[in-house]
């Protein structure tokens, strides 16, 4: 029988302020000015993609044949493309697709990684070994090349195929992280208690383990959103992403790059979509880094 731990004497007389690790972490995050500013900016960009029909009266398919490849002016704030369509509206509507693919692809890979990693760790033994060897083999594959082949050979390329294919190839790292976390939680007292009470494997994983390993999962997912957006833009740039009249930042950048070959300098076609993509990637990466620094004390880099 261990005696109850005595309250620290220094706190005697002062009302004890309890600070949960989560609250401390949130405070660390809020103090990280770069991460906080990035979150704000990202929210602005996200809102603009949703509210763009209110911001501009133009339609994203509407063509102005008298003003193709036009410079930015009072009516077309970011200029027009080769078909005389307004770049401002197309940019933010394209942003919807870029964001959607980033979030949905991450959702797909998180779901797969959570399921695979937790089952592998919970099963243990030979099953675990086999499942993880499979992950090792898949790790050796040139993922992006295979995604390109799949996309090239698919007949219909919609937003759905893009995010499903990206998500399908993105769960490996997450499966490893989840497995490591589950292994460390697996032997803890509350899991043993649940098992002693006769709870079956499924509910133990779902109700008792997953809530306790969510932290690292969330942090890794935040960092995989920009990666998925980058993959989407990359595919769209190669002409293997979403197809006309739908658009995304990758499509717009590729149209801009193609227009560069001609003698006149159509800088706005590259500069605006490029800035949108680069800024968004910067914000997402900063937020992910900020979350990791504030929640994951062990991995914190001393700066």
């Amino acid at each position, binding site marked *: 029988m261990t005696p109850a731990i005595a309250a620290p004497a220094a706190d005697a007389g002062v009302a004890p302020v309890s600070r949960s690790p989560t609250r401390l972490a949130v405070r660390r995050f809020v103090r990280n000015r770069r991460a906080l500013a990035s979150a704000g900016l990202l929210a602005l960009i996200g809102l603009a993609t949703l509210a763009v029909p209110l911001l501009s009266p133009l339609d994203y398919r509407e063509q102005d044949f008298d003003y193709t490849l036009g410079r930015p002016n009072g009516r077309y704030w970011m200029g027009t493309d080769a078909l005389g369509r307004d770049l401002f509206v197309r940019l933010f509507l394209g942003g919807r697709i870029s964001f959607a693919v980033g979030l949905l692809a991450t959702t797909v890979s998180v779901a797969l990684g959570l399921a695979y990693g937790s089952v592998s760790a919970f099963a243990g033994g030979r099953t675990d070994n086999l499942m993880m060897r499979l992950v090792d083999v898949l790790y050796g*594959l*040139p993922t992006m*090349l295979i995604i390109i082949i799949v996309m*090239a050979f698919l007949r219909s390329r919609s937003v759905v195929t893009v995010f499903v294919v990206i998500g399908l190839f993105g769960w490996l790292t997450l499966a490893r992280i989840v497995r490591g976390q589950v292994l460390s939680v697996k032997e803890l007292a509350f899991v043993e208690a649940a098992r002693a009470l006769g709870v079956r494997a499924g509910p133990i994983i779902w109700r008792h383990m997953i809530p306790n390993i969510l932290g690292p999962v969330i942090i890794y997912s935040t960092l995989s959103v920009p990666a998925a957006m980058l993959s989407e833009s990359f595919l769209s740039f*190669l002409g293997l992403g979403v197809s006309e009249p739908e658009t995304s930042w990758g499509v717009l950048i590729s149209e801009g790059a193609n227009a560069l070959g001609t003698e006149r300098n159509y800088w706005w076609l590259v500069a605006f979509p490029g800035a949108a*993509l680069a800024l968004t990637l910067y914000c997402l990466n900063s937020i992910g880094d900020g979350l990791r620094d504030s929640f994951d004390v062990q991995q914190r*880099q001393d700066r």
Partner: protein
Amino acid sequence: MLAFTLRRLLGGALTLFAVATLSFAITRATPGSPFSTERSLPPEIIRNFEAYYGLDKPVLVQYARTMGRLLRGDLGPSMYYRDFSCNDIVWPGLRKSVVLGSIAAAGALAIGLPLGILAAARQNRWQDYGAMSLSIAGICIPNFLLGPLLVLLFTFGLGLLPPARWPEDGSLHELRKLVLPAWTLAMVHLAYVSRLARAGMLEVMNKDYIRTARAKGLSEWSVYLRHGLKNGITPVVSYVGPMVAVMVTGSLVVELVFAIPGLGQHFVKSAQNRDMNLIMACVLVYTALVIFMNFLVDLAYGLLDPRVRVT
């Protein structure tokens, strides 16, 4: 050492086999054929083509034949460029891609390493902030954006460098064509190398043996470069393996943007043309390249850090 080499060889062969099987499966399981593009051919001619390339056989027979052919080092005939074999297309392309990739890798290391080391030596001063801002920019500006931006700036804006194509000879004037593509390919790696070098150096400089070196009166430069450097840059060495893999994907974009007839361009075009044999050839060559580079990196890692014993 021998056991290590053999085990890696076996693992590499396994990965190549998996890649060959997977790419075969994808190309056969999805609709579309290399003969159904542009103008529509009469069905008899398509049937003749399919018979010629063995596509009329059951899938398992095709698979066995393909694998047997690959084992003999024959990548097969191209189904789109019908007068060429894949071997004729792939190897000259690979040579260009490897030349470009080597220049980019050398550049990323030659600039990224000193930059990271400098940033660590001048931590929290303007040199540090400058280097790390450059690094963040390198990470957030993907290569398919950087390429067009560089062309805008250096070709259309300043008129300094040619925008595209492969050099026709070794003269300095022609070699200028390599500057922008190599820069585009190298930038993101330069960013990561400088970050890793900085973090590695900062960690090492807190170690006891560095304190000892300082205590015995060595100059700061000597401590830094002779004692700190060797351990400080090990994270960079382990980055070189993944760097090659990422450079492969990067080269796809760079070769398209700068019209360089390398392996990357062949890969993308063969995927669009559904040239089944050429796709498999490209993927296999790429995979073999990445496996080989990772093997070299692991060997180098063992040499640099005796604690990592190669067994």
